[in-house]
């Protein structure tokens, strides 16, 4: 039976040493939804780039809502202003490789929510391509 409606919450250190652990967990979750290798890689890359921009001090909360053919990921709250700016700014100029452009390429949709303390939470949605 395919999963649906489950949620996994994770508090992970921002230190780069733990990025591989987060990747592994994302792989495990995405495998349950039967994502393709490339789709898993895309979601891992999206989260990895967000974490890289979020600094290396403290920890970050990640939550994964597992649908039948999708994974909705929330990353944050993040305090880095530049992450918020990078995601809210308009379209990147041709040839520019911004965080926004990367996310536009590797996930199906993304958005930014403000948390109560003024920090941001980034929403990512990745759909299974051959449902």
């Amino acid at each position, binding site marked *: 039976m395919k999963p649906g409606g489950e949620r996994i919450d994770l508090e992970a250190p921002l230190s780069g040493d733990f990025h591989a652990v987060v990747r592994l967990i994302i792989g495990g979750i995405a495998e349950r939804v039967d994502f*393709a290798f*490339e789709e898993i890689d895309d979601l891992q*890359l999206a989260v990895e780039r967000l974490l890289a921009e979020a600094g290396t001090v403290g920890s970050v909360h990640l939550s994964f809502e597992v649908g039948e053919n999708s994974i909705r990921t929330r990353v944050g709250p993040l305090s880095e202003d530049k992450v918020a700016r990078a995601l809210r700014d308009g379209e990147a100029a041709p040839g520019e490789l911004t965080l926004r452009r990367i996310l536009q390429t590797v996930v199906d949709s993304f958005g930014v929510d403000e948390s109560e303390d003024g920090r941001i939470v980034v929403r990512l949605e990745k759909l299974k391509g051959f449902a």
Partner: protein
Amino acid sequence: MNLHRGNSASADARRPSSPERAREEDRELLRRYHESGDTTAREELIERHLPLVRSLARRYAGRGEALEDIEQVGAIGLIKAIDRFELDREVSLATYATPNVVGEIKRHFRDKGWAIRVPRALQELNASMSGAIERLTGRLGRSPSIAEIADELKTTPEEVLEAMEVGSAYSTVSLSTGPSGDDELDPLETIGDEDAEFERSEDRAALEPALERLAPREREILRMRFEEGLPQTQIAHRVGLSQMHVSRLIRKSLALMREELLR
């Protein structure tokens, strides 16, 4: 077409006739870059010395890391050497670059020590995954799922996921560490290999400065992925690499670019 392995005919045409002439040409290119900010001269210097990087990288093959990944790390050392070269130095660029390249590679292995100690079975599974993914992609006409890869390799999805991380785990922190002057060198490693085999990516995009720090092949892969929006499978086909390798190069290139932006 394999962008990295380049165009041998044009390489022959541009091959200098002697080591002395090659050094003179390097000097002229270094002058153009350092005195006039000519980035095409820098680009050409990088390409002229990639064979040296490859030669040095081969010494570190067979230690649990793909040779092309080692070359990529070594290329960072080359770029640093070009950028730091002082024109009043009496040494050739190849001689100056060699310890930089070797230092970068050694630091990479030192920082990734944990990755090299993963169980052999997982390393072997990782090595066989590329072929399995290529076969399945061809057979299914799409990127395979983890369960399909596991089935193909007669193992479990969990082991496939673990193996995916073997050899691809990559620390951005390691690339932000300082210059390589403190690394110990073998005497042979201070002697530059001036083999003038050239490589050239034919289709260059106008890219931001951080992108210019990457080797032409990596820039082209990023352009195909994020400008053309091509999936990894198509990029892999175009550049003649495995999909797993393309994935690793994309991740590494993005991490390197970020390091550059923070400099």
